[in-house]
Every structure is written in structure tokens, then in C-alpha cells.
């Protein structure tokens, strides 16, 4: 049973427009959420995070929104650039345990068309 879901395997967006990537979760105990970006043949790289006590966090072109009541978060990229084409993973942090493990979604392939 996946606790973190990304229901859209792929998304195509025109350069300069907004990209919206979505993520749903089931465990209300998650206390942080992160987004990672992954290019082919490379490891995932950290993009942005948000605490469960916030509803928005912004870093340049990237903004993450959290709706706790809906157990939903989204990543907005504005404006989208061709270099943003990658697989995006959302991840949630479990508050319990010594390692505060991350649970990842299955990823969304974003393609930004020039």
C-alpha cells in the first residue's frame, strides 16, 4: 500500500508556462515533505522541502504548496525551462524511528517543450 502517490506518470508543458506536479499521501503523521529532481543516469537531487506546519514554501522558480486537510502537495515551476525536463519525486518524512525515513512516490516525468 503506497503511502505517497504520484498519479501522473508524465507531464508535458510548453516552455515559459507553469508546470504543476502533484503528490498525495495517506499518513497524517508525516512531518516534512521534499521534492527531488532526477536526470537520466544521475542520482536524485534535492529541490525543495516544506514542513507540515506550513502551507507554502518558495525558492526561486519553485514553490511547494501543502494542503494538509486534503493530504495533498504540489510543486509549481514558473516559468518552466527545457532544463527542468526530468523525473520529479515527492517524498515524505516519517517522524518516528531513528532514521526518519523517507517514503518516495513513483515519480512524474516532466517534459518542457521548447
Amino acid at each position, binding site marked *: 500500500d503506497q503511502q*505517497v502517490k*504520484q498519479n501522473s506518470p508524465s507531464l508535458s508543458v510548453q516552455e515559459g508556462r507553469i508546470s504543476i506536479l502533484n503528490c498525495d499521501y495517506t499518513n497524517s503523521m508525516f512531518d*516534512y*515533505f*521534499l521534492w*527531488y529532481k532526477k536526470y537520466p*543516469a*544521475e*542520482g*536524485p*537531487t*534535492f529541490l525543495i*522541502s516544506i*514542513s507540515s506546519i506550513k502551507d507554502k514554501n518558495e525558492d526561486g522558480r519553485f514553490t511547494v504548496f501543502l494542503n494538509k486537510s486534503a493530504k495533498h502537495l504540489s510543486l509549481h515551476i514558473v516559468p518552466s525551462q527545457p532544463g527542468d525536463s526530468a523525473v520529479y*519525486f515527492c*517524498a515524505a*518524512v516519517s517522524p518516528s524511528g*531513528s*532514521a*526518519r*525515513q*523517507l517514503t*518516495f*512516490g*513513483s*515519480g512524474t516525468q516532466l517534459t518542457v517543450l521548447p
Partner: protein
Amino acid sequence: DAGITQSPRHKVTETGTPVTLRCHQTENHRYMYWYRQDPGHGLRLIHYSYGVKDTDKGEVSDGYSVSRSKTEDFLLTLESATSSQTSVYFCAISLSPTGAGANVLTFGAGSRLTVL
């Protein structure tokens, strides 16, 4: 790069053979993790370590063992590889996941394993 090296980067092996993947870090981070990435599943935690000789199981640990004899090295072993273990394996490190704040992992470049 954050100083994480995975080896080998690519390996093809046959069913039933043992395989060891190595993760080496130069960051002196206490926590190290092994994940596998498969289509439709994202990244799933296999094992993690919270110090030398201190390891614990993750979500998909069956068929895998790990060892950490030095802070900088974390080994993942498949005692008898099966085709279902064909995957891309990522090592990750974390400075200190306990306490407040997001547990930001830094990942290696990955090791692609094919079991025929």
C-alpha cells in the same frame, strides 16, 4: 558532487551469483542508505545504517544484506542474485536525520544491476 561514489556503476550477472555493491562517502556523515529504483515504484528503502556496525532493515530488505565496518563505506550484498533484483541501486547519505528539520538525503549516481 557531495562526495559519494558508488561502484560498480554497471554490472551484469547471472541468477544465483553473489553481488556486492559499494558506497563510499567522504563527507563523514553518520547515516547511510541503500535504495532501489524501479518503474512504477519510485525509490524504496532496502537497508540503512546509523553508524559503524549499526544497520537496520527498510521496506524491501528480503534477499539483501549490508555491512558497515567503516564510517565511509556501506556495502550492499545480494547473496544469490535473482532476476527480480534487476534494478538501479542508489546509495544516500544524511548528516543527522534525528531532531527537527527535513531529512535531506544526498544521493550517489547509482549502480545499474542486471540479473540474467
